[in-house]
Each structure stands twice: as structure tokens, then as C-alpha cells.
């Protein structure tokens, strides 16, 4: 009897063991991902990150992540070089231009059949607009994650300077010019030194904001030539070729020649520009709401100028009454999947991974960290960084390492905005925060150029862009005389370099997709 029992026990034990190994079934799938870090310099998540554990235990996924370089050019180089050697990872973030090149080379896989596998993402992330954004001729070549808030920038002006000089908020371009002139020459900060300027800017070019770049868009918009492309049905084409563009350049040239623009603007980089306004160098600029008013960013300015105040400025009207802060279009970040990953059968694992990230558990873990360690929930149900240890709260340098993937789960929900942009008190007792600026900026007029982002680049892209942008700069800086003749010659040469052909091809593409209004 005893013997039978022990045999049976052994058998049961054996069956259980074998059964459990079968139940754990599939070997772990390794997913290699190159991601866009939320803040690259803060460093990657620690090796014992709870997310790795959960993925390994729940789904049998071994996640290996690499942060892409923070500089966009470096990102492109890394991705394109890896692509050339067919060494792209399973999942990777890629900017639009290189992405289109990779599609042509067959180095990114269509993912249409993965969307149904991600129910958590269907509503807030990969909705119809997102899928449309990444679809070319019926195939979606990547996942378009919602990007940052749209229309979150605006013109702001030093209200304390206006008050000191007894001026009113400018409403037209000419009034703006006069205010800038006063800011430059009438010592608005009262320190007896001639060290202030009216308008501050730097050259910040984006795919859809070429020529003088984003920081000059409010001025260009007043002439109706904001953005790279004019996306109206009647007047489609490159803005740089329009007669109104000539007028806009003349206005900016006037500002530059009369020194009402910070003269460093052509050679500044973004950090220098931001350092400059924190040191009170100029009084009017276009800035992003969090870069301006989030506590960490505002603090240095606050310390230097306790009574300084930036007020939102509605975009000034141009000669024909037009006004806008600039252009906007659908803003998504693309993560593409390599064909090698699909061939290796990782499709389901990747989908599961992405889907889990957007589940309630994943959303909080990846967005803010662990409750009680990195964040806490306050009385209103909002997420905050109070009541947790100072060195692990999600806004601390250590805390930021566990939220590096938050770009992949955020979709600008109310929860997020409340947590990211809390209010605070300034040195002189005002209660401010980024949110009021955001609401105001979003209420101002903007020009919608959705669809322009899909325009295929011209074959002579690099040289053409350089020619146009360089020419524009030379006009504005007075190195080439801004006469009608010179401008017409400039446009003619543009066409010779392929601008006319590009416009035709772009027009056909836009008509095909019905983007022009």
C-alpha cells in the first residue's frame, strides 16, 4: 500500500512538473526596441525596473530597450546606418523623412493586422486619424502615437515692460513694430543700459516650418504665408514663391535692419534662446507653454525678475487683416516594426507589449511610476508628486528614469495635464502655471495644414531646401538687396532647382487624398 501511494505521488508530482513546464509553454520572446526617451540625459530605467518583471512573468516577453540619441540628426544617422546594414531592431521610433525612405527600401513592415490585437489602444491612441497618418496606399507602415499637445505655443510679451513704458498691447504688425522699437531703445527694464531688444528668436526649422522657421511664424502668418506650404485649394504651392512672401520678408528685414530683433538670432540654438529670455534680453517671443511657465523653467526668470510678467499676446494683424500664431497639423510619433521581427514571429508579442502599456496598470507604471514611491493621488483624484520621497518623485532626476517611455502611453488626458502642469506661486505672489497659457494659446487662430506632412520630398530635397532657406536669410539680413528683381530671380532659380516640378507633384498627391480646402 505504502509503495503504491509513493508511486502515485511520484507520478502526480511528475505530471504536475511536466504540466507546468508545458503551461509556461513558449520560450520568452525578446523584443528589441529603440525608443525616443522622454528626457534622454536623465538616463535609462534601472535594470530591476518593475516593467521588465511584469512583461517577463505575465507575457514571457524579454524587453531590451535602447534610447535613441536626443539630437534629431544623430537619430537619423543611427537609424539609417543600421538600416543600410539591415540591422534595425524589432520596434523603433523614426522621424517622418527617414521613415518614408525606409518604406521605399522595404525596411519597415506593414502592421494593419496588428491593430485588432490592441484593444486598449483603439480609442485614445491608434484611432482612425492615427491609422490614417501612417497609411500610405492602404498599408499602415507603423504606429502613430499621439504626440505632444497641439497648438501649445504662442506669442508672449513682457507686460511689465509695457506698463513701465506706458504702452498698450499691440494688435497690428505696425503696432508690434513700434513696441519692439520702444523695447530696444527706451530702456524698458530701467537699468540704464542699452541691453534689451524687442523681438527674440532663433532659427528653428521643421519640415512644415521652413524659411525663417517657427519663431517667426506669427509674423509670416500676418501676411498669409505661414508654413512651408499654402494648403488652400485656390492658392496651393510653396509659400516662398508667393508675392506676399516678399512683403513679409520686407517687414522682417525692416525689423532686423533697425535692430529691434535680438541680433544673435541667426546663430543661436534653442538652449541659448531660452537662456536669453531668462536673462531679460528681449520682450516679445513665441514660446511653448511649458517651456515658458512650468515651475522648473520659470524659476530662473522669476529669480532674476520677481516682477517680470509674460502676458499672452494675440497674434497681430497684417496689412490685409490676417493673423495666426502659426501652422499646425496632426502631430504623431511613428514607431515602425522591422520585417525581420515579423518574420521571426514576434508580431503577437509586440502587439501584446504595446497593448499592455496602455492598460490601466501599464499606463500608470510607465507614465508616472509606482504609487507611493514616485507619485501619490491627492484628494481630488489627481496625480501629484507631493507626499512621496523627494529623491524618487517622478519629477526628480531619479524618478525620471522610470518614466522614459511615457511618450508611448500619454495621450494628453486630463489626468496627465493635471499632473504635469501644476500651479505654483511666483516670487511676487502670483499663482501661475502652464495651463492658462495653454488654454489661451489654443484659443487663438491657427492654420491647419493637415496632409502637408505626407508630401513626398523633392528629388533634389537637400539642395533645394538649402537654396531657399539660405536665400531667405540673406534677404532678411540685408546681404542680398531685397528688391523685386532679386526676389523674382530667386524664385526663378528655385524653379530651376526643381521647385515647380515639386509643386506639381505635391498638388497631385494632395488632390488624390483630398487634403486641400
Amino acid at each position, binding site marked *: 500500500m505504502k509503495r503504491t501511494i509513493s508511486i502515485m505521488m511520484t507520478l502526480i508530482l511528475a505530471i504536475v512538473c511536466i504540466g507546468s513546464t508545458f503551461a509556461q509553454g513558449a520560450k520568452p520572446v525578446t523584443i528589441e526596441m529603440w525608443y525616443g526617451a522622454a528626457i534622454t540625459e536623465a538616463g*535609462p530605467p534601472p535594470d530591476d525596473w518593475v516593467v521588465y518583471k511584469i512583461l517577463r512573468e505575465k507575457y514571457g516577453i524579454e524587453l531590451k530597450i535602447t534610447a535613441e540619441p536626443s539630437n534629431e540628426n*544623430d537619430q537619423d544617422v*543611427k537609424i539609417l546606418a543600421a538600416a*543600410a546594414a539591415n540591422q534595425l531592431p524589432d520596434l523603433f521610433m523614426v522621424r517622418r523623412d527617414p521613415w518614408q525612405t525606409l518604406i521605399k527600401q522595404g525596411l519597415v513592415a506593414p502592421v494593419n493586422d496588428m491593430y485588432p490585437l490592441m484593444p486598449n489602444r483603439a480609442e485614445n491612441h491608434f484611432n482612425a486619424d492615427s491609422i490614417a497618418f501612417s497609411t500610405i496606399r492602404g498599408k499602415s507602415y507603423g504606429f502613430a502615437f499621439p504626440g505632444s499637445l497641439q497648438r501649445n505655443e504662442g506669442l508672449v510679451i513682457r507686460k511689465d515692460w509695457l506698463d513701465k513704458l506706458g504702452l498698450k498691447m499691440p494688435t497690428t504688425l505696425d503696432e508690434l513694430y513700434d513696441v519692439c522699437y520702444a523695447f530696444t531703445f527706451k530702456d524698458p527694464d530701467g537699468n540704464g543700459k542699452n541691453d534689451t531688444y524687442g523681438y527674440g528668436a532663433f532659427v528653428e526649422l*521643421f519640415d512644415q516650418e521652413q524659411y525663417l522657421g517657427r519663431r517667426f511664424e506669427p509674423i509670416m502668418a500676418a501676411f498669409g504665408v505661414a508654413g512651408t506650404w499654402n494648403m488652400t485649394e485656390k492658392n496651393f504651392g510653396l509659400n516662398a514663391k508667393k508675392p506676399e512672401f516678399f512683403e513679409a520678408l520686407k517687414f522682417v528685414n525692416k525689423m532686423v535692419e533697425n535692430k529691434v530683433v535680438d541680433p544673435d538670432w541667426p546663430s543661436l540654438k534653442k538652449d541659448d534662446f*531660452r537662456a536669453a529670455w531668462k536673462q531679460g534680453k528681449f520682450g516679445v517671443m513665441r514660446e511653448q507653454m511649458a517651456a515658458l511657465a512650468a515651475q522648473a523653467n520659470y*524659476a530662473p526668470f522669476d529669480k532674476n525678475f520677481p516682477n517680470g510678467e509674460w502676458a499672452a499676446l494675440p497674434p497681430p494683424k497684417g496689412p490685409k487683416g490676417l493673423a495666426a500664431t502659426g501652422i499646425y497639423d496632426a502631430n504623431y510619433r511613428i514607431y515602425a516594426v522591422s520585417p525581420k521581427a515579423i518574420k521571426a514571429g514576434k508580431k503577437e508579442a509586440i502587439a501584446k507589449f504595446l497593448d499592455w502599456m496602455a492598460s490601466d496598470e501599464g499606463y500608470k507604471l510607465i507614465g508616472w511610476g509606482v504609487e507611493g514611491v514616485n507619485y501619490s493621488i491627492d484628494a481630488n483624484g489627481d496625480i501629484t508628486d507631493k507626499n512621496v520621497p523627494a529623491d524618487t518623485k517622478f519629477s526628480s532626476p531619479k524618478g525620471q528614469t522610470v518614466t522614459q517611455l511615457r511618450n508611448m502611453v500619454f495621450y494628453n488626458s486630463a489626468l496627465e495635464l493635471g499632473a*504635469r502642469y501644476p500651479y505654483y506661486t511666483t516670487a511676487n505672489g502670483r499663482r501661475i502655471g502652464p495651463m492658462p497659457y495653454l488654454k489661451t494659446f489654443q484659443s487663438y487662430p491657427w492654420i491647419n495644414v493637415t496632409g502637408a506632412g505626407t508630401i513626398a520630398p523633392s528629388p533634389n530635397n537637400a539642395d533645394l531646401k538649402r537654396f531657399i532657406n539660405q536665400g531667405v536669410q540673406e534677404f532678411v539680413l540685408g546681404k542680398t538687396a531685397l528688391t523685386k528683381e532679386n526676389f523674382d530671380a530667386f524664385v526663378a532659380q528655385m524653379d530651376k532647382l526643381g521647385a515647380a516640378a515639386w509643386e506639381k507633384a505635391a498638388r497631385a498627391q494632395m488632390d488624390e487624398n483630398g487634403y486641400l480646402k
Partner: protein
Amino acid sequence: MKSSIRLTKSDKFFHFLVNTSLFVILAIFVIPIWSTITLSFRPNTFIGSALDGMLLAPWKWSTSAYEALLGHRAFLTSTFNSFRIFFQGVATALFLTVPLAYILSIKTLPGRKLLYGIVIIPYLFNVGLIPNYLLVAKLGLMDKLAAVYLPGAISVYNTLIMKSFFEGISEELKESARIDGASEITVLLKIILPLSKPILLTIGLYYGVHFWNDFFNAMLYLNDSALQPLPILLRNILLSSGMNEYVEVNAFGEAPIAAIKAASVLLAAIPMLIAYPFIQRYFVKGTMLGSVKG
């Protein structure tokens, strides 16, 4: 040393010129370097021109930039990686370069011209990124520290400089050894190398600095964050751009960005700065003197 003969007027003028030139050169170097140092200690509340910045009193300096960097976990890991790359790289480079430089210096070697040609050609034909990337990938060096230094482990420029040095070593010494029946390897090890301290240290330093500062190879070939060396971290700090949308938090707390940039560059340069004075000692004049006379 030069004998202490009374200096002529022209000699006095000569030395006056030498010293004045050096003073001017000193000033030219001090000013920008001082500007960088003061930039790295600049507090967040500073307003003023660059000149004011350079004259800022030391008690007003803020160490927040250095604190932020040195307390950064990634900073310590990447420094460690950089040291590994440095030592492994220099050892590998010297191990490969010395024999090559030596055989090129042997004037009686048959096929010398051919060898020379083989060495010079790649120097000119820098074929660029992709052909090299393809090779590194094929060799399985992706995500290995060696990918940073191995492709550059023999620099033709350094090889030729070393060869030039070897050629200058007294031919009589080499000949006497050969006549005694020593093989070339013995000549190299027993005679040439002991006399080559200056050049080995110089070239070793050239290689070392190059590997230490490399970010391009590291960026392309190292994906594992545990392997990334200092320049990658620095470059991310120095050139962070529009990607970081979450501008509401500063990865480095209170220090102004400009100070962080300056501090990071100075910190990256420090190991080299410490190493150089030690190596300088070895550039002793008259190293050759003893061997020829003796």
C-alpha cells in the same frame, strides 16, 4: 644643458622675443579657458555679459552643475566605460601599430615600397560610414566595446610618425645587434622599445585621446546603455533638442544649461589632463645620448 656663456645682445633680444611671444600665447589660451571654467560655475541667477561672467567673484560661484553631473548614475557608468575603452584601446593600438611601424622603418626590407603603398592607400580612401558599418556588423562587434576602438586601432598617421622615430634610432645599434645574430623581433624588443619611451607615450596618448573622445562609433554600434561611454552622455546633454517635449522638468535641477554644458566638457577632459603631465616627464632630452656614446 647649454653652457653658461655670457649672452650677447642679439641673444638677449632673442630671449626677450621668445618670452614675450609665450606671454601673448599664454593670454590667448587663458582667456577662453577661463571663460569656460567660469561658465561651468555660473549660478542660475546670473545676468550680464560674457565679460561680467569671467570676472564673477569666486564666492558667487555655484557648483550645481558639477553636483548634478557627478551625482548622475549614468555619469559614473559612462566614465567607467570610457576608461575601459581607453586602456583596452591603447593597448590594442600599440600592440598593432608598433610592429607595423617597425618593419616599415627597416630600410633593407624587400618589398618595402609595396608595404608602404599598402599602408598609405587606406589613409587616402576614407570610404565613409556605410562600408565600415557593414564590416563591423559582419564581424559581430555590435554592442561590444571593441567596436569603438578596433576600427581605428591602426592609424596610418600615427604609424608613419612612429616609423619616422624608429628610423632615427642609430643604425649602428641595430646593425651591431643583427651582426650578433639577433632576429628582428629581438632587435625590436631589446633595443628599439627601451629607447622609444617618448614616442610610445606620445602615440599612445594620441590614440587614447582619440578613443576617449569618440562618440560616433559608440553611437552607431553600442545599443546597450550599460556600455555607453561618456561622450554619448555628454552629446545628449549638449545637443538635446526638440525631441524632449516634456520641457517642464529639467533633468539636471537648478543649474543653467550653459553651465552644465561647460562642466560636462571640462569633466570629460579631466582624465587626459591628469595623464599628460605624467607622460611629459618622459620626454627627456638626450635619451639618445646615452646609447650612442655608450
